[in-house]
């Protein structure tokens, strides 16, 4: 049985910068202003059968989130037809409607009903939800006194117990500690075996290949591939590679014909844009110069998404001469002691005390941190001891299955 059927689904957004106000609306109407349009999805056509699992991959802004929102019914498609047969549980709905003033018990009842269960169904599953969340003793306390881990565990427990016919999973399996993650993975597999259809949006290609054999690649709102996970991953990596070549080549400064090409690799030498905290990465760059230079310096800057520099590193003066016939090849190995977030790296070459000869545009990458209770930018490798007992949340190098 077809659970999901999408036929030429497109979603258009009108770009409207700033807060919409009455005055602006009137102004726009008076000027008959044409707003810019953006198709976040276009021509998306695929089907998903009962018991089938499909992965959706794509870089940020490829339309994955919009696809999930359209499928969950939150946002209607502008064109095309969408059919969902059966109850759909968006795991993006984890913790929806949780009210900090209400107790865990009360919140489970509301949240379960928001996710499409009847009150009786929630009550029937209540014990199982509570057992799964491991927060029995706090059920009667207001949720505002919960730790963030407890909160997520409870919320996730409700979502996973809705026993939907279609489940939408959006990169949330990094909830809680390792034990809990294992439990979630088991539960997900159980749901899979019970005949539900699952659509997983993820950056984690490893997890994807464990869950399913079929995947879609989204790029610029369109489907690039609907095929095997291997096909999808190779297409996805091609997209990243192409983009990187486009992003990485930039010209600046005095020497407009000098440029730097760069690429970011993981420990295995594969081109990557998504890393885990503590990963060792290699930045490879090649500077092609328009004339000969001596004593060049190569430098890389890691910055936050907002442009604030997190760290920079520069070489010594390089004694050999580089020029049009001899490009400069450099490799910078770095340990990403960064916590979850979006970052960018850029590189430049120059001669000490002079303007940059060439500089790249920032190349974006993301980092995922698998340690509960540690946030911010920098991994401080914390150890917490209370009354002599170690209370540090467990630390995972990556999500284990």
């Amino acid at each position, binding site marked *: 049985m077809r659970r999901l059927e999408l036929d030429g689904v497109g979603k258009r957004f009108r770009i409207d910068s700033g807060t919409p106000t009455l005055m602006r609306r009137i102004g726009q109407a008076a000027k008959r202003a044409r707003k810019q349009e953006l198709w976040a999805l276009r021509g998306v056509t695929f089907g998903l059968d009962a018991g089938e699992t499909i992965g959706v991959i794509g870089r940020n802004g490829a339309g994955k989130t919009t696809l999930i929102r359209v499928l969950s019914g939150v946002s209607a498609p502008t064109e095309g037809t969408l059919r969902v047969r059966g109850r759909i549980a968006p795991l993006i709905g984890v913790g929806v409607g949780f009210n900090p003033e209400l107790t865990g018990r009360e919140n489970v009842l509301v949240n379960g*009903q928001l996710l499409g269960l009847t009150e009786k169904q929630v009550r029937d599953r209540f014990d199982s939800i509570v057992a799964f969340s491991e927060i029995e003793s706090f059920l009667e306390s207001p949720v505002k006194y919960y730790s963030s881990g407890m909160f997520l565990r409870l919320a996730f427990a409700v979502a996973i117990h809705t026993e939907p016919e279609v489940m939408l999973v959006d990169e949330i399996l990094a909830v809680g500690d390792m034990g809990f993650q294992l439990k979630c993975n088991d539960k997900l597999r159980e749901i899979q075996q019970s*005949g539900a259809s699952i659509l997983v949006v993820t950056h984690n290609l490893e997890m994807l290949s464990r869950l399913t054999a079929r995947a879609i690649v989204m790029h610029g709102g369109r489907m690039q591939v609907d095929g095997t996970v291997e096909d999808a991953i190779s297409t996805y990596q091609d997209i990243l590679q192409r983009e990187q070549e486009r992003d990485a080549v930039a010209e600046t400064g005095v020497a407009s014909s000098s440029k730097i090409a760069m690429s970011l690799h993981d420990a295995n030498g594969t081109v990557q844009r998504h890393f885990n905290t503590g990963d060792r990465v290699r930045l490879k760059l090649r500077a092609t110069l328009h004339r000969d230079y001596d004593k060049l310096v190569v430098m890389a800057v890691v910055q936050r998404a907002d442009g604030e520099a997190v760290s920079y590193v520069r070489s010594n003066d390089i004694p050999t001469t580089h020029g049009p016939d001899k490009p400069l090849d450099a490799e910078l190995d770095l340990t990403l002691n960064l916590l979850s977030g979006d970052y960018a790296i850029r590189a430049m070459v120059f001669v000490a005390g002079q303007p940059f000869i060439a500089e790249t545009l920032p190349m974006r990458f993301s980092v995922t941190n698998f340690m509960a209770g540690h946030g911010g930018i920098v991994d401080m490798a914390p150890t917490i001891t209370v009354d002599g007992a170690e209370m540090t949340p467990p630390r995972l190098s990556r999500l284990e299955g």
Partner: protein
Amino acid sequence: MTAEAVTSELWLTGESTPPGRLLRELWAARRLAVVLARNEYLARYRSSLLGLLWSLLVPLLQTVVLAIVFTHVVRVAAPGQSYALYVLSGTAVWSTFSSGISSGSTAIVDTGAIAGRVYFPRLILPMLAPMAALVTGALTLVVAVLLLPAFPHSSYHVQLLALPLVVLLNFLFTSAFASVVALAHVYARDVRYLITASMLVWMYATPIIYPLHLAHGLRPYIEANPVTGIVQLSHWCFLGQADGLEPSLLATGAWLVGLLTIAVLAYSRYDRVACDRL
């Protein structure tokens, strides 16, 4: 699960929802609406010492203040009527209306965290605050009925039986108005301030602290005010008579039909895209 019949089906072509389907979806979401409204209510009063009593104390306190000011300072009292009871019966309606509007008219934007992640008819969102206000409003009226013998020139009479009609009419009008405004608020955020400012003026355009006959030349405008009909109906219930009840009730009815029509049409167009902008 495989053998189970399909519990629900979603079939979307285009952004709009036909009015009939919108109303069916709204009906199907009635239990969820009650759950969410109860939640809002519980959460609001849970952490305060007097809890629910606060919602009753406010209109009573307002009545006492107004009764003192207007009987002893300004003297607008009508002969043979209890001015205090007049104020209380009007205030009970107005405070229900205004508390329903104040959070109902911004409900879609304010609950974006919920509405942006799971679908249910958005039309229930602006109705939650009016539903919560309905409970306190009804309780205030019950308290007013219990206090009735304490007011001068007042006694129990048959018109009091029409009080449920006041509650119902108030709820319908508050919901219809909040729904239309809440949707407009998604597309123009300063509607929030416009409403706050209008509520201030609106209260004085409603015969709550003054009797309608004192309005003189402004009277036709005040009778055209949709809240006047509800307030006058409340006056009629408590005082046994109300000046110009029929024309103002007629105006309320016309407003109600107009607003409900606008609400259904607007939501059938925007219900499934309203949360795109949050």
